[in-house]
């Protein structure tokens, strides 16, 4: 069962985990009865830690993220987080009836920021993602990369300790994605956030994370973990990144191959 963590409402570092996932299983009703998607997952994310969840299709990584976000309930096991986590999707999920700045202000309003502080705070967050001056822009006037940055700013507006990211850069072109990797790394190091980042891109996982967690597929189980101690700033082309990626890819392919054998 879940243990209760002390809530850090006053901004002090009282929690020992940004997220604690304990023996979590999840099954869905499928055509062939109950289908087990996640099997006995246990994972801790330390405050300030950057963890990537890596896996092929069907490993349940997005399901796990939804569970941590509280959008769904686990079938067994427990999840505790330090406050309500922020969540970023593959699609920007910005509300098209609001401007970029008002999207951020809505997040601030919903978390209870006083009205007179919202505008200024939104401007600050836009500055943080280097979109100062984009407050009045409509969502459709922004490029894909800019939309994801506004989405990041909106997620940051929740002032959660934990940021969950569900393949947030998967739909972007390679150049923009590379730039956003740098941007995310910079913001993570500036803010001291904990990040749980889901991806199926091995190099992206290695490029960003302090720890890479590989999930096997159907059902999702933790297959192996790697600690990444390549110093920042990293580049996706770095030899060290490439070498570790090769090793992880081998293991990932092994996991995938198992499914072809029966």
């Amino acid at each position, binding site marked *: 069962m879940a243990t209760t963590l002390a809530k850090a409402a006053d901004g002090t570092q009282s929690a020992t985990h940004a997220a604690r996932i304990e023996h979590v299983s999840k099954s869905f009703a499928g055509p062939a009865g109950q289908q087990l998607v996640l099997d006995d997952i246990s994972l801790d994310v330390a405050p300030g830690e950057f963890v990537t969840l890596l896996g092929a299709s069907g490993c349940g990584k997005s399901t796990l993220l939804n569970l941590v*976000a509280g*959008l769904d309930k686990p079938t067994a096991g427990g999840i505790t987080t330090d406050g*309500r*986590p*922020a*969540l970023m*999707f593959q*699609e920007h*999920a910005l*509300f*098209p*009836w*609001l401007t970029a700045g008002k999207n951020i202000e*809505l*997040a601030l309003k*919903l*978390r209870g920021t006083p009205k007179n502080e919202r505008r200024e705070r939104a401007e600050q967050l836009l500055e943080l993602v*280097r*979109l100062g001056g984009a407050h009045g822009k*409509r*969502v*459709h*006037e*922004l*490029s*894909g*990369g*800019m939309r994801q940055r506004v989405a990041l700013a*909106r997620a940051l507006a*929740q002032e959660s300790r934990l940021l969950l990211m569900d393949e947030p850069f998967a739909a972007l072109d390679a*150049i*923009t994605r590379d*730039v956003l990797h*740098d*941007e995310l790394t*910079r913001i993570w*190091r500036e803010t001291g956030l904990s990040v749980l980042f889901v991806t199926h891109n091995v190099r992206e996982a290695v490029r960003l994370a*302090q720890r890479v967690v590989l999930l096997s597929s159907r059902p999702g189980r933790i297959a192996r973990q790697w*600690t*990444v*101690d*390549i*110093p*920042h*700033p990293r580049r996706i082309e770095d030899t060290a990144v490439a070498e570790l990626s090769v090793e992880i890819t081998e293991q990932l392919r092994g996991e995938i191959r198992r499914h072809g054998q029966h």
Partner: protein
Amino acid sequence: MASTDTTPKDAKDAGDLAGLEAGLDALETVQTTRKPFRQTLTQKILPPVVAVALVLTVWQSLITFKVVDDPTKLPAPADVWMVVEKAWLQGELLGYIWTSVSRGLFGFCLALLIATPLGLLLARVKLVRAAIGPILSGLQSLPSVAWVPPAVIWLGLNNQMMYAVILLGAVPSIANGLLSGVDQVPPLFQRAGRTLGATGLKGTWHITLPAALPGYVAGLKQGWAFSWRSLMAAEIIASFPDLGVGLGQLLENGRNASDMAMVFEAILLILTVGIAVDLLIFSPLERRVLRTRGLLVKS
């Protein structure tokens, strides 16, 4: 653990990154400009004007070449214009129009007040939807003329009867528009809203309603068309001098007097008012909603 201390290389990188990002943003941002007036004139205004001119030409030539040589069947455009002009000079024209338009808009506003909560209720409560959803859709295909006789019997020949017919015509359209608007809200917006803390009523107010607005506005537009049609049916069938002469009664008066020019006058006015209200109120509203969301496709 990765090293997280800042080095001078970091600072340089940060500067590079800012420049790189600014470059990418500039390259990928699409400049949206509004169409110049000339283009609007040739693409939007000119075609309908030409079409109307063509219809008038055909009409006039039917008279000129004596294809139809009977003013009680087809009056000349000039004769119809004279009737309109006469009504204007006698100060009656605006009276006809105002009688009908004020009834139509008041009835429409009533319909709006009833249909909006009804639509939300249908969208939110499954049982209500299962119970009256199909009936409401069915009512949309029932010609509102059918409601005139029972409305007269129930309420008598008065304005209440007219409003009842308008409501029965417009409420289903507006409620169904809102319902389909809510149905088409992408689940992603609901999920995003919930992670931001917009649940329950907050979710309805901040996420569901604004997201459903395009469908709602489409429903309003259709609701107005139905209101106007229903009202004309009611005015034509249940014309009664004490009610004041609206456009429907004008048409009926023309028929009784066998005055074809007056009949044409009434038909053209009904058409014009219907189009004008749509062009002045509902189309700009719809365009505004769609444009701010980037949903207006520019060809």
